[in-house]
C-alpha cells in the first residue's frame, strides 16, 4: 500500500473550471438548492443538464455514447458537484456503479442498450443487494432466481433499494443455484425492470420523513436471459469488485461539506472567530481528499486498491460526522429544519441522518475487518 501525491493536467483543471462555472450559474438562476452530498436530491432534469455537458458516463467509451475519460477526470467533476451540494442522486448509481459493471461484465448488446441511455441521463439504476436478513453479510441473500424457458423467475425481497420508486432498473444480486457449503458460489447478478410485472415497490420511510429507500418485492418476476449481467454463478466476484469502485470516492467525505461552506458564508464574523475549528475541519478534508485522489489514480493505472479504498471510506465517513458534531458545538441555538438559513436547515438534516454515513456502502466495522486482514497478510 502506498498512496502518492497526484498532479493534475491542464485539461483536468480546465474541466474543473467548466464545472465550477456551470454550477455557479445554476445556483444563481435557482437551478438547484444545495444539499448534502448524494442526499442533495433526485433531479432527472438536472442530471440531463449534466449529461448534455458530458459529465455523466465520463468513463464510458465514445462507442457507447460516453466520453472515454479516466477515473481522475471523473473524480474532478464529481467532487465539484458534491462539494457544491448539487442534486446528483438520479444518475448516481447508474454513473458510478452500473456503467463500470456493464463495461466489465455486460454483453455487447447490453452495453449498446444501456450505456448510451445512461450517458444521456435518460436511464437510472438502483442497487438490489441488501435483504431483510442480509445486510453486511451479503452472501446470505435469499432472493432466488429459477431458470425457465428463455430466462429466470425471481422471487424474494430486497430492501434499502434507494430510488427504486423513481429509477428504471435495478442490478440485483440473487441466488441462481441451491446453497452449498461455500455460500459465495451460486450467486448471480440480474438486471431487473423496476416497472415490470411481479415487482412491487413499497416505501421505507427514512427517519427524517423522507422517501429514498424502498422494499422491492419480487413475486415470480420474469427476467430474460439477455438481462443476466456477467456470468451465472459469478455474482459474488462481480459484486465485490463493484463495491470496491464505489468505496473511496468524494461522496465519502463531502456529504457535509456544504455545512462548512454555508456556516462560513452565513456567519462571517462568528466563523472567523472559530478559525481554529474551521482550519481543523478543512485540513482533515484536504488530507482525506489527497488519499481519495490517489486511489482514483491507482484505479486509472489499472490497480485494484481495495484496502486503500476501505481506509479512505472509513476516514471519510467518520469525518463527515465530525463536521456535524463540531459545527453544532459552535452554536448556541438549536437548528430549525424550517429555518430561512440554509446552513441551519442543512445542519438540522445532517444531525438526524449522519449516523447513516458510516453504515451505507459497507459499515465501518466490516470495512475495518476486511482491511485489517489485507494489512496483516501484506506484511
Amino acid at each position, binding site marked *: 500500500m502506498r498512496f502518492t*501525491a497526484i498532479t*493534475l493536467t*491542464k485539461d483536468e483543471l480546465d474541466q474543473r473550471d467548466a464545472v465550477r462555472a456551470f454550477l455557479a450559474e445554476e445556483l444563481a438562476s435557482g437551478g438547484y438548492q444545495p444539499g448534502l452530498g448524494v442526499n442533495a436530491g433526485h433531479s432527472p432534469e438536472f442530471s440531463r443538464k449534466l449529461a448534455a455537458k458530458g459529465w455523466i458516463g465520463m468513463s464510458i467509451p465514445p462507442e457507447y455514447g460516453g466520453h472515454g475519460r479516466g477515473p481522475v477526470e471523473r473524480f474532478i467533476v464529481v467532487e465539484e458537484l458534491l462539494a457544491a451540494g448539487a442534486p446528483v442522486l438520479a444518475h448516481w448509481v447508474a454513473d458510478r456503479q452500473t456503467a463500470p459493471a456493464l463495461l466489465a461484465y455486460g454483453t455487447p448488446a447490453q452495453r449498446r442498450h444501456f450505456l448510451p441511455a445512461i450517458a444521456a441521463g435518460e436511464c437510472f439504476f438502483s442497487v438490489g443487494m441488501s435483504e431483510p436478513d442480509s445486510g453486511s453479510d451479503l452472501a446470505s441473500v435469499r432472493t432466488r432466481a429459477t431458470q425457465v424457458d428463455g430466462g429466470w423467475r425471481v422471487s424474494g425481497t430486497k430492501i434499502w433499494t434507494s430510488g427504486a420508486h423513481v429509477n428504471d432498473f435495478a442490478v440485483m444480486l440473487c441466488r441462481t443455484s441451491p446453497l452449498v457449503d461455500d455460500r459465495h458460489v451460486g450467486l448471480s447478478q440480474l438486471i431487473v425492470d423496476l416497472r415490470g410485472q411481479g415487482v412491487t415497490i413499497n416505501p421505507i420511510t427514512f427517519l427524517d420523513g423522507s422517501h429514498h429507500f424502498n422494499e422491492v418485492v419480487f413475486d415470480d418476476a420474469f427476467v430474460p436471459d439477455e438481462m443476466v449481467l456477467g456470468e451465472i454463478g459469478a455474482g459474488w466476484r462481480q459484486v465485490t469488485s463493484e463495491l470496491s469502485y464505489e468505496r473511496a470516492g468524494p461522496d465519502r467525505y463531502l456529504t457535509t461539506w456544504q455545512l462548512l461552506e454555508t456556516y462560513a458564508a452565513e456567519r462571517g464574523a462568528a466563523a*472567523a472567530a472559530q478559525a481554529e475549528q474551521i*482550519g481543523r475541519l478543512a485540513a482533515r*478534508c484536504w488530507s482525506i481528499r489527497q488519499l481519495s485522489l490517489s486511489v482514483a489514480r491507482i484505479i486509472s493505472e489499472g490497480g485494484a486498491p481495495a484496502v486503500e479504498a476501505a481506509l479512505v471510506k*472509513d476516514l471519510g465517513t467518520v469525518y463527515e460526522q465530525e463536521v456535524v458534531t463540531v459545527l453544532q458545538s459552535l452554536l448556541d441555538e438549536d437548528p430549525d429544519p424550517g429555518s430561512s438559513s440554509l446552513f441551519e436547515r442543512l445542519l438540522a438534516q445532517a444531525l438526524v441522518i449522519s449516523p447513516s454515513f458510516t453504515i451505507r456502502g459497507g459499515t465501518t466495522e466490516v470495512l475495518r475487518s476486511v482491511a485489517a486482514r489485507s*494489512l*496483516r497478510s501484506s506484511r
Partner: protein
Amino acid sequence: MTAEEDRLLEQTLTKVFEEHSAPADRRRAETEGWAPECWASLVNSGLAWIGVPESAGGSGGDFLDARTLVRTAARHAVPLPLAECVLLGGWLVASAGLRLPDGPVSVPLPHAADTLRLADGRLTGTLHRVPWGSRVNAIAAVAQSSDGDRVVLVEPAEAVIRPGRNVAGEPRDEVRLESVLVPAERTGPVAVGLREELAVRGALSRAILMAGAMDAVMTMTVAYSGQRHQFGRPIGSFQAVAQRLVRLASEAEAGYLAAEVAARHFTEAGTGAAFQVAMAKATACRTASEVITQAHQIHGAIGMTQEYPLHDFTRRLLSWRQEWGAERHWATVAGAELTAGPGAGLWPRITTDLVAR
C-alpha cells in the same frame, strides 16, 4: 529526480541508518546526546548535505532529495539534527551567501522568549530551544540589528549552554550569547520573506519527520500484531485489535501523504505553498496522536519498556507534534485564511492541486 533515483537514494540511506541507528545506537545516543558515527558515515557517503546548494558547500539537489533524507532518517529515529542541516540550516546559510560549517548545523526552534540582537558586530541574546545546540558546529539564526535582520552563524563554544531535552531525549539546549563577536564571514543579509519561509520550512520539516516516524510505527505495529500470540492466535486476528490496526494505518497514511503533497507544493512554489504546509502540519499533528494511541494500545505492556523500540518513534512524534507550531497554531492560520472576508468559498482553496508540467 526520477522516482527510480529517489528509490535508490532511500535504499542507500536505509543501509546507513540500519548500520548506525540501530536500537542500541539510539540508546547510547540518548546518554551521549547523539550518534557521531552515523554523521561521519553520512559525510563519507556524500549524503550529509543533500539538497543544500553547492554554492554554500552542500552537495546540491532539490528539496525532494532533502525530504527523502529526513523522512528516511525519521524511519530509523536517527539521533542527529538532519532536518536542521538539510531543510533549515543549510538553506539559511546558503540564502545568506555564507559557507556551511565543518559539521552539522542547527536552527533554533521558535520560542516566544527568544531574543537575538546584533550590534557593532557583537551578538547578544538567548535562544531557548536549540536542537543539539551543544553538539553542532554552528547554529544558524536570524538576528535583529539596526540595519534590519541578519543571518548569523554562531559556534556553540562561544555561548553559554544550558542543556535541555525533549521527551524523546534529544538535545534541545538553551544557548545564551553575551556580546559574542561575529566575524564578517559568519553573517549575511536576510532575503525578502526569509522569516516567513523559515516558519514554513520549519513546519514542513516536522511534518516530513512525522511522516517517516508514523510509517515506522505502522510497519512495526502491523508486524507485532501478527507475531504476538494470545489465546492461541495472533492478537491482530481479534476484531477489537484489528479495528485499531486499521485506524492506525489510515491515520499514518493520511499523515504521510499530507507531508508528501506539501513537500511537492513547496518544491514548486516555496512560500506560495504556505497553506498546504499548514494543512500538512495540522494533519500530521492530528494523525500522530491517533497513531501513538493505537500503536501503544496494540503493543500492550511490551511497548512501555525501554528495551522495545516503539518509544523511539512515539516520543519523537510527541515532541515534533509541538515543534514549529502545533495543530492549534496551523489550524488557526489556515482557518483565518479560509474565513478572511467574503470570497469564493472554502472549496477552491482546499483544491489547489499540483499541476503536471
